[in-house]
């Protein structure tokens, strides 16, 4: 009682069901410490439940802040909006604005991704990306089930449901959502660097091997994502034959070339068995820089079609019709998208610089 607290000495225990329920509501990363503290403060089931329920929102919000990046959320929002049709300023034949129709599944997917970040355990970046894409599919389907229920109950009109073609377009967002899910946050970088930025036990050789495995995994995921985009885009261009088909085919060709480049040069090169510590350190630094340059460019490549879409709408719907609001909207969207990509790259660059410094040691001023 050194702090003047009324603490539970362990004789009183919260009901098991309540304990389990609160444990489930708390994010994994904080669960042990917070549940332990709640046990220590336990006086009655009511107090335990009330205090636990008051604590959960703070923990979830704090975890969301720590695990989500504004730039990544921005990019997720852009890609979901574009693929679900919210770039179109028009109104559907059933009288529902395209932007509003896309907002329901879009917001739900975004919420699902943020909550996934909050509650997920330790995952490799590749698995995290794949699971993010799965979560997006589930959220889109759930949103359409909910809207379908409201339509069935006669509460909203049928125009709020996504058209079948929207599902094909939504599928185009999944590979990019997957790639956004693989972006390493501050927590991942801290784990790779080890405590205090010092590489983890096992030495430089093991550290480089782990880095190479990560780049291999990421490269494969990136190629698979590109293959999905190439396949789906080709299907849309072939079946729908839109006005912008020539541009579309040029993007598809560009993505095919990109895939071939990644196949050849995307992963980090293996270290020679006979490499000295100094050679390995140099190779590690070089590969970190090369990987960063490559991925930095890739972020711009992923969003080239979206930039093109925004510019097309800016010219056709904004400038073409002299609509000042749409000109402002699409210009802001263009700047926002570019800003988000630049921020993701800047964050990554900062992490890479710290990592290189930790591997090579401090550079002379």
């Amino acid at each position, binding site marked *: 009682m050194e*702090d003047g607290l009324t*603490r539970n000495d362990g004789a009183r225990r919260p009901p098991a069901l309540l304990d389990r329920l609160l444990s489930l509501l708390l994010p994994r990363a904080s669960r*042990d*410490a917070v549940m*332990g503290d709640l046990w220590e403060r336990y006086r009655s089931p009511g107090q335990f439940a009330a205090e636990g329920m008051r604590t959960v929102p703070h923990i979830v919000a704090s975890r969301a802040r*720590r695990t989500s990046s504004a730039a990544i959320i921005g990019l997720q929002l852009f890609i979901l909006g574009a693929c679900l049709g919210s770039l179109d300023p028009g109104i559907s034949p059933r009288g529902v604005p395209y932007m509003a129709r896309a907002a329901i599944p879009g917001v739900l997917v975004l919420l699902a991704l943020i909550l996934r970040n909050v509650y997920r355990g330790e995952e490799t970046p590749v698995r995290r990306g794949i699971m993010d894409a799965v979560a997006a599919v589930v959220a889109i389907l759930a949103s359409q089930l909910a809207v379908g229920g409201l339509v069935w109950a006669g509460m909203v009109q049928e125009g709020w449901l996504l058209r079948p073609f929207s599902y094909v377009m939504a599928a185009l967002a999944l590979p990019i959502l997957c790639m956004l899910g693989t972006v390493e946050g501050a927590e991942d970088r801290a784990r790779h660097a080890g405590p205090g930025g010092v590489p983890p036990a096992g030495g430089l050789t093991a550290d480089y091997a782990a880095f190479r495995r990560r780049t291999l995994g990421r490269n494969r995921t990136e190629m698979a994502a590109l293959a999905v985009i190439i396949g789906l885009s080709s299907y849309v261009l072939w079946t729908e034959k839109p006005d912008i088909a020539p541009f579309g085919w040029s993007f598809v060709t560009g993505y095919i070339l990109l895939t071939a480049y990644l196949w050849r040069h995307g992963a980090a090169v293996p270290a020679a068995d006979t490499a000295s510590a100094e050679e390995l350190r140099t190779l590690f630094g070089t590969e970190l820089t090369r990987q960063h340059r490559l991925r930095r460019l890739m972020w711009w490549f992923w969003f080239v079609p979206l930039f093109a879409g925004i510019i097309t709408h800016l010219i056709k719907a904004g400038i073409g019709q002299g609509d000042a609001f749409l000109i402002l909207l699409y210009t802001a969207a263009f700047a926002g998208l570019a800003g988000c990509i630049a921020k993701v790259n800047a964050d990554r660059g900062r992490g890479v610089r710290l990592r290189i410094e930790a591997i090579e040691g401090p550079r002379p001023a």
Partner: protein
Amino acid sequence: MANVPSLGQFEQLVLTSILSLGDNAYGVTIHARVEELMRPRTVALGAVYATLDRLEDKGLVGSWMSDPTPERGGRAKRHFRLLGAGESALRESALTAKRVCDTIEKSWGGDLWKTA
């Protein structure tokens, strides 16, 4: 002192609590000490956790997990300690608070310390 991050009032209270608790600074004890400092106001346990996370992200405090104990249902404690940057930030805040007090005291004299 350009690199010392500025602290909000609640952050100052949490850092002060960690400083005063020494090796025994973890969720329950930090919350109790913050409530002591903020008397008669009460503080949500969750608000303390959120602030601790933010202070850790700013590099002002560090944390580590202790061994699990039976009175906590076999769960570990997350202990906190001030890092160098945290000490500097707290010192800077304390100096600012002292300057504020001195300035008010010059105008109000001893009345400053009388409770309403």
